[in-house]
């Protein structure tokens, strides 16, 4: 048997690195860093400056007048406060119950952090709890209050929560169905994907026609149901539900296709072992499939959540944000005032949205990490 001997030499003295070698990594990375800075950081800083400015058109160009936090003041405390926050009112008993429950859960989370002597985490959670409690109060004082009316902030959150939850559940159901060896499943995989391939503006017009009780293609159905005099667009909740149905219809395929890939990629051995052991289909799903697709699910929800905060096409085409402000989202509101050249106000709304999305996404990831025990 041949003997293998190592011939690797260990340096006994410190290797000399020439200056060119020392700067080479930085030199190679620098162009990429500059590109990233240029296309993401620079616009971010510029838009922050815009949100602190007022734009005027003057002979020969534009004039940006620095106005400090005035654009934010108008939105948060001025006459546009009602558009953003809606009309707050005394919550109902159910509303108070929701608020109390959320407050208790947040209190418990902070208490646990303090008990673990994780003081830095506790401070973070305390800040998060305060913001979350404020948002919850905003929701209950507008949605769960008899005289309340939600503003663009709450309407946006409503679309995100209801839309993403429904998209995930329906997408998961369809994925589980298409993962079964059923006849025609290849055909349905393609069919289920179609809505995602239609432009959102097209989906808007499609749902506008479908929801028209007077002259749309579903008119005979509405007449048969005695709803020819009903106008979904006159009713705040009718209009919101129409927007949500359109959004769910369009984005469920995204959830479906990714979840289907995750389900089909799971290891088959544990499933076969469970079947041999006599586990029910629900048990297999609960204890094997769901944990297997959990990492994909969390990422999927995060991506859709960030995307859903920016919803604009559907409410814009369906209702222009109406009736009143019932279906207006933050992005649509920013777009509307941008069209009237209130660029500063529009940038301020964009920054409020950025803060909200970053806050909720960070919270979601942190909550998930602590739940899964990862770092």
């Amino acid at each position, binding site marked *: 048997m041949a003997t293998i001997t190592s011939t690797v030499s260990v340096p006994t003295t410190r290797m000399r690195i020439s200056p060119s070698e020392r700067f080479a990594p930085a030199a190679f990375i620098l162009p990429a860093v500059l590109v990233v800075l240029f296309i993401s950081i620079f616009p971010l800083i510029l838009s922050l400056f815009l949100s602190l400015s007022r734009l005027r058109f003057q002979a020969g160009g*534009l004039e940006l007048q620095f106005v400090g936090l005035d654009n934010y003041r108008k939105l948060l405390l001025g006459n546009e406060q009602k558009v953003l926050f809606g009309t707050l009112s005394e919550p109902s008993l159910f509303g108070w119950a929701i608020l109390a429950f959320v407050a208790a859960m947040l209190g418990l989370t902070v208490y646990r952090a303090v008990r673990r002597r994780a003081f830095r985490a506790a401070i973070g959670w305390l800040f998060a709890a305060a913001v979350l409690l404020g948002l919850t109060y905003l929701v209950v004082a507008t949605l769960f209050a008899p005289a309340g009316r939600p503003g663009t902030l709450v309407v946006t959150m409503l679309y995100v929560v209801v839309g993403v939850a429904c998209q995930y559940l329906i997408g998961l159901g369809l994925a589980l169905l298409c993962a079964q060896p059923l006849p025609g499943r290849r055909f349905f995989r393609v069919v289920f994907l179609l809505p995602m391939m239609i432009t959102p503006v097209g989906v808007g017009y499609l749902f506008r026609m479908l929801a028209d009780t007077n002259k749309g293609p579903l008119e005979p159905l509405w007449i048969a149901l005695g709803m020819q005099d009903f106008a979904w667009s006159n009713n705040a909740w009718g209009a919101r539900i129409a927007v949500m149905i359109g959004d769910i219809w369009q984005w469920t395929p995204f959830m479906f296709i990714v979840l289907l890939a995750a389900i089909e990629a799971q290891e088959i051995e544990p499933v076969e072992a469970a079947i041999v052991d006599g586990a029910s289909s629900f048990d297999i799903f609960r204890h094997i499939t769901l944990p297997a697709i959990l990492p994909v699910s969390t990422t999927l929800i995060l991506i859709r959540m960030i995307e859903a905060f920016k919803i604009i096409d559907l409410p814009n085409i369906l209702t*222009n944000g*109406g009736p*009143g*402000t019932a279906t207006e989202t933050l992005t649509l509101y920013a777009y509307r*005032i*941008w*069209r*009237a050249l209130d660029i500063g106000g529009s940038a301020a709304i964009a920054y409020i949205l950025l803060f909200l999305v970053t806050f909720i996404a960070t919270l979601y990831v942190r909550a998930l990490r602590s739940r899964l025990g990862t770092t």
Partner: protein
Amino acid sequence: MNPKKIASLTALGALVLAACAAPPTAQPAAQQPAQQQPAKKFAGITVNAITFSGPQIAEPMQRRGKEFSELTGATINVVTVPFADLYQKILNDFATGTNSYDVIVFAPQWMVDYIEPGYLEDLTDRVKADPDLQWEDVGLFFRDFSATYNGRIYTIPLDGDFQMVYYRTDIAKELGLQPPKTWEDYLAFAKAVSEKKLTTDDGKPVYGSCIAKKKAAQSYWMVTSVASAFIQSQGTGQGAFFDLETFKPLYNNEAFARALEIYKETTQYGPPDEINLDVGDTRGLWTAGQCALTIDWGDIGTLAIEEGSKAKDKTGAVILPGSKQVLDRKTGKLVDCTPELCPHAIDGVNHAPFAAFGGWSGAINKASRPEVKDAAFAYLSYMNQPAQSNVDVTIGKTGFNPYRVSQFKNLDNWIKAGMSEQAAKDYLGAIEASLNSPNMVLDLRIPQNQYYQGIVLDGAIAKFLAGEQDIAATMKEIEEGWEQKTEELGREKQLAAYRATLGVQK
């Protein structure tokens, strides 16, 4: 490779080669004489024009553009964008120095925002030097409002805009109703039709009133049409939006409150989804025979005679209804009309026709090259000249409404277009009555009027119609929103612009 594919590719290649190798003599004989003709005046020049996606306005621009190209050799390239984006799209293009457009066809309401920074070419001398325009034939109001700013001409009018009330003559006859003279008459007419529960021949309901009340569309013009007669009574120079001394809004008083009451009450007699309808929808309902009353620009008159319309020869038009009570600006109360208070009243009724929007007009980018400016002006002039415009205003799909004196006087084109003589007289009579009214309300034309009307007024009205707030809260929101914008832009500057606008009316 599949032999069939090879054969197909070979055939395709042969075709391409044949096309490339075709000798000049292979050109159609009809093109040969053209080569011998002298070069056309604007040969080789491309004029880029922008307007809204229509199809109205864009259609005649493209059609007339082709004709103009054949006549002069210039290439007219019409770019269209959605109406809601047009204002800022043009402004951004000018302000950033991109200058993609040589001709803009836009709302003259926005003119101040384009002229003050110096983006538009002064057309005064060109207009004076162009006899083909027949400038004196253009209605005085359109020359002064749509075309002129601070005594200089900046635009060529292509369209005349007033809001009027249209009513169904057959229904009025059937129910024994008179065309509405006051807004109370309008409500009574609409209510009577609504209670009668009429249907069309194909069983569709006929609504008492159809008004475009959709948010971020035309609703703010409609409510202004209702409010005008209550707010302005002393003539055009009095203004209907702001006080001429303090620049305080005139939209928080008993007059505007009454207008809001009327506006909301009309919803009871309209289609169930009226608050989500824009003018495209209400016009569709009108030509389908489903409306007894509507408020609209001149377009209804020509759309009603188009093929397939069920309102042909059943469409009557009147000047916007008036009021027997008007605003006392000192007290903010509604008071009865007196000869002093309402000097222009007819039978005690104060009418204040609203020149909403002002009519599509064309302007030229100051930064365009001189030869392109020449071609651009010739193109706008060509569209405006009576030979073209007198035909275009009779076609519904153009979106152009009459604006020349000759278009009011000569009924032939209208009858040729399919209107009965009586209908033509009714239609043109209503426009002429509005045009000749000394109490016409000029649309707001001050810096950033788009924000005042399109954001603040429109937003507050949408909330009011949706039941989100009452009349008092709506008026307060409009007043506060307008005041805030005025403070931002400078009260004196805004007041000066507002006065200048009203001062141009002769």
